[in-house]
């Protein structure tokens, strides 16, 4: 764990003890990326912000459940957010989701201006991941994104893409391995 992660893990401990300042600090550092993920998954700004509130309420009330040996604070927040977003997606009707996808294309995204080295580093890392994703074939990337951002399983992806199940499985496995290689060589 990097020094910054260790410091943030300390913040989680303080939040668990009811420290509002620590909570505000974690919010300032991570809320934009968490909301970015929620927006990417849910496709509607208002819904993404609703879920963001749920996520941070969960952080405030359940920070004691954070395990620094399993993930970084950011990783934990993103997984909480993803899990909540997938719950929403699963219960959402297909017609409604299509309407929201249309809303996404018309939405004005408020991009966060890079502030200080933290944001610059995040941006660099984001570029690295984008580059890594760029190394994947479009099919591999599509399969991984359908699973990760939309919560589809092997079988559901095969149905969605009208591809053989075995093909989907191998695309995901090869794509994940390629992603790891690219990420590790980038860092």
């Amino acid at each position: 764990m990097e020094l910054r992660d260790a410091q943030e893990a300390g913040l989680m401990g303080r939040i668990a003890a009811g420290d509002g300042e620590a909570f505000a600090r974690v919010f300032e550092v991570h809320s934009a990326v968490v909301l970015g993920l929620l927006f990417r998954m849910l496709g509607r700004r208002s819904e993404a912000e609703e879920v963001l509130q749920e996520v941070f309420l969960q952080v405030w009330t359940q920070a004691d459940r954070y395990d620094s040996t399993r993930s970084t604070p950011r990783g934990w927040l993103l997984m909480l957010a993803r899990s909540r977003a997938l719950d929403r997606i699963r219960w959402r009707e297909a017609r409604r989701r299509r309407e929201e996808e249309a809303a996404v294309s018309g939405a004005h995204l408020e991009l966060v201006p890079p502030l200080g080295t933290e944001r610059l580093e995040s941006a660099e890392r984001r570029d690295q991941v984008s580059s890594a994703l760029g190394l994947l074939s479009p099919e591999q990337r599509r399969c991984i994104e359908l699973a990760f951002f939309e919560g589809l399983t092997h079988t559901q992806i095969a149905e969605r893409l009208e591809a053989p199940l075995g093909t989907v499985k191998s695309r995901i496995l090869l794509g994940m391995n390629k992603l790891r290689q690219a990420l590790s060589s980038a860092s």
Partner: protein
Amino acid sequence: MTATHSPRFEELIPAYALGALDGDDLRELEEHLETGCAECRRQLDLWQGDLEELAASVTPVAPSAQTRERILRVAGSSPRRWAPPGWLLLPVAALLLLAVWGVAGQVRLRGQVERLAAERDRLEQRVASLDQQVRRTSEALRVIASPGVQSVVLAGLGPTPGAAGQTYVNPRDGSALFYAFDLPALAPDKTYQLWIIHAGKPVSAGVFEVDQRGHATLRVEALGEIAETDVWAVTVEPRGGVPQPTGEMVLKG
């Protein structure tokens, strides 16, 4: 063999971390993970770390001012530090007071009930004991206060010179009351036996034990003919008593 780590599981873990695994693959891996395979757990954490990068690769979106305020207010006035509005304080305080008073009252009442039950038991025993004393005293009075009652004092003999006895005899009905004082306790196989020696012949008047103080009371009924010249004696006999005295005499009068 789900318990042994194998490359097969390593192939399933990336899709599992992604949430894409389903059907038999999912079942197989979950059964294996339940065995606590440390290597698979480690790899799962690694893959989730990679997915954190994937999740964080999205374009950041700043929360609106409204969302930001709502979220930060959570920590500023959290449930852990929730302050009730003023108008709620009085009824809440009253309810709390009632609840505390109710619980304290129940505890206090339970204590009282227990104390009263113990007191009742103690008094019942006391009443039984007094009943017994009254009965004995009445019997004694009935004998002692009878007209023509005769009293005989028994003196301690050889081994028990400090002992003493007293009999009250009602010659009308042949009943008598015998008291013994300062007799030593006997071995378990022995007993004291009271005799009335009438016309030179001993007749058993009953057996008795002494209490911790060496005292005893014996009510004797229907002894038959009793004369003033009769001799009263106490001997030590085998437990249960004997038809004729065989043991050492400890009281006589």
